[in-house]
């Protein structure tokens, strides 16, 4: 049986980035295995903000910051993923929030994230279409967005060019630890690998169970509205709304815990339409072409889980809520960890062992 150097479970924005970054060294036999096809899950149902400035604690903001810095470099390597560093505006509507905004700016400044707290006039100057009901906003030049469809297609093509093999429509049905390496039992047969990466997004918990691991993640659903292509209306990525390159406006920021249910629901669509109009009144006249809904994985404490799983040599885990934002840095650091055993930024804060520690403390 062929023995792979690395098998990655999951061809989404996290697994594909790890596979691509590993493949840059051209020295590994790599297989990516996925129960369906890139973009069929979370990576294809996102607004795809590359969002940094409100991410806390500050060390998590810093990781997001570095990742956004890697996007232009990634784009030079794999092609045009329509990454736009538009700058990001997170509006607030009460004076009480201004205090919180100032505190955020102060703490993020310590890790190099420059946040300006804007007055109403400054928000409207930057974004004339925004509602005058806004009280203020936090603003950072570092935020932006990307086209997730282009990103995933180009990761896959670049990895394939570097010799990565893919097996789509092939769910993993069991994992088996061997004296050296792992066996991956799938619908289409069994594969043997020296190193194994779990990057299954919302299926992470089930995959972990194959190894008797309880990976502390939950699922949340997000629903988004898409308008017809509009003339340029928004200049920045706004917390909740962005305008894509082709003119479509994407709106939505909802979180519901409903398992794998990916249906759209009228109540959330209505609330989202209300939000659209209250943020940007001109959107009242826009046509909605489609809504969509996606299931995301969220670690129980909200922060990424990255690294080797203690007690399971050569078994790695990469799971997080903000996969689009973190994709370039996670691919870079995980490939460093897998090939060299150490990383250029410390991954300790993101180890799965933090959950055991907190349990013992309780």
């Amino acid at each position, binding site marked *: 049986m062929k023995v792979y150097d690395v098998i990655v479970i999951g061809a989404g924005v996290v697994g594909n980035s790890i596979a691509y970054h590993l493949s840059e060294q051209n020295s590994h036999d790599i297989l990516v295995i996925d129960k369906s096809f890139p973009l069929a899950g979370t990576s294809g149902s996102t607004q795809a903000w590359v969002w940094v400035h409100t991410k806390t604690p500050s060390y998590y903001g810093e990781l997001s910051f570095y990742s956004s810095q890697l996007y232009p470099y990634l784009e030079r390597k794999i092609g045009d993923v329509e990454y736009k560093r538009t700058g990001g505006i997170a509006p607030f509507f009460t004076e009480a929030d201004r205090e919180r905004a100032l505190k955020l700016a102060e703490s993020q400044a310590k890790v190099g994230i420059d946040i300006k707290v804007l007055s109403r006039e400054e928000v409207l100057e930057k974004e004339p279409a925004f509602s005058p009901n806004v009280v203020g906003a936090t603003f950072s030049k570092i935020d932006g967005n990307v086209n997730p*469809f282009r990103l995933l297609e180009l990761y896959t093509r670049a990895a394939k060019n570097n010799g990565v093999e893919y097996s789509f429509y092939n769910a993993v049905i069991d994992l088996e630890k061997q004296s050296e390496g792992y066996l991956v039992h799938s619908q289409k047969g069994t594969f043997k690998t020296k190193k194994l990466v779990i990057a299954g997004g919302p299926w992470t918990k089930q995959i972990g169970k194959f190894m008797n691991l309880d990976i502390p993640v939950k699922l949340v659903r997000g629903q988004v509205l898409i308008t017809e292509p509009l003339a340029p209306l928004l200049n920045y990525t706004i917390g909740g709304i962005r305008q894509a390159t082709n003119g479509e406006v994407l709106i939505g920021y909802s979180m519901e815990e409903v398992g794998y249910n990916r249906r759209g629901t009228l109540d959330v669509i209505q609330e989202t339409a209300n939000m659209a109009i209250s943020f940007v009144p001109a959107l009242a006249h826009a046509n909605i072409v489609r809504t969509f809904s996606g299931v995301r994985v969220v670690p129980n404490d909200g922060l990424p889980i990255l690294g080797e799983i203690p007690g399971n040599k050569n078994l790695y885990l990469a799971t997080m809520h903000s996969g689009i934002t973190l994709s370039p840095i996670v691919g870079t650091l995980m490939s460093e960890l897998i090939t060299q055993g150490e990383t250029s930024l410390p991954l300790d804060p993101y180890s799965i062992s933090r959950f055991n520690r907190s349990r013992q403390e309780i």
Partner: protein
Amino acid sequence: MDKSVMICRCEEINIDEIETVLKLGAERFDDIKRITRCGMGPCQAKMCFKPVAQLISDYTGKSLSEIPPARARMPLRMTRMSVMASNQDSGSTVKAVFEDGDPDDK
């Protein structure tokens, strides 16, 4: 058929573009949609689903009955944002959608 034949009229996607995604391993309409934008335009795959399903069938050898339909999502046809946001009114929103009539008539 000539590879330049337009399959998705809304987004102007031809057979050649669809086949490049089939070569990547796509097996469903929605796989092709996300990468090419075929079916993402105003008609929401009402025009292009069947010819794309035929291309998938030709390429993969699956029968047409094995190819799942494009995922349908609300609001099924273009609807004004102000109509969707009308739940402040006492009437049901479904009723409001129909009462508003065709947005193109305004």
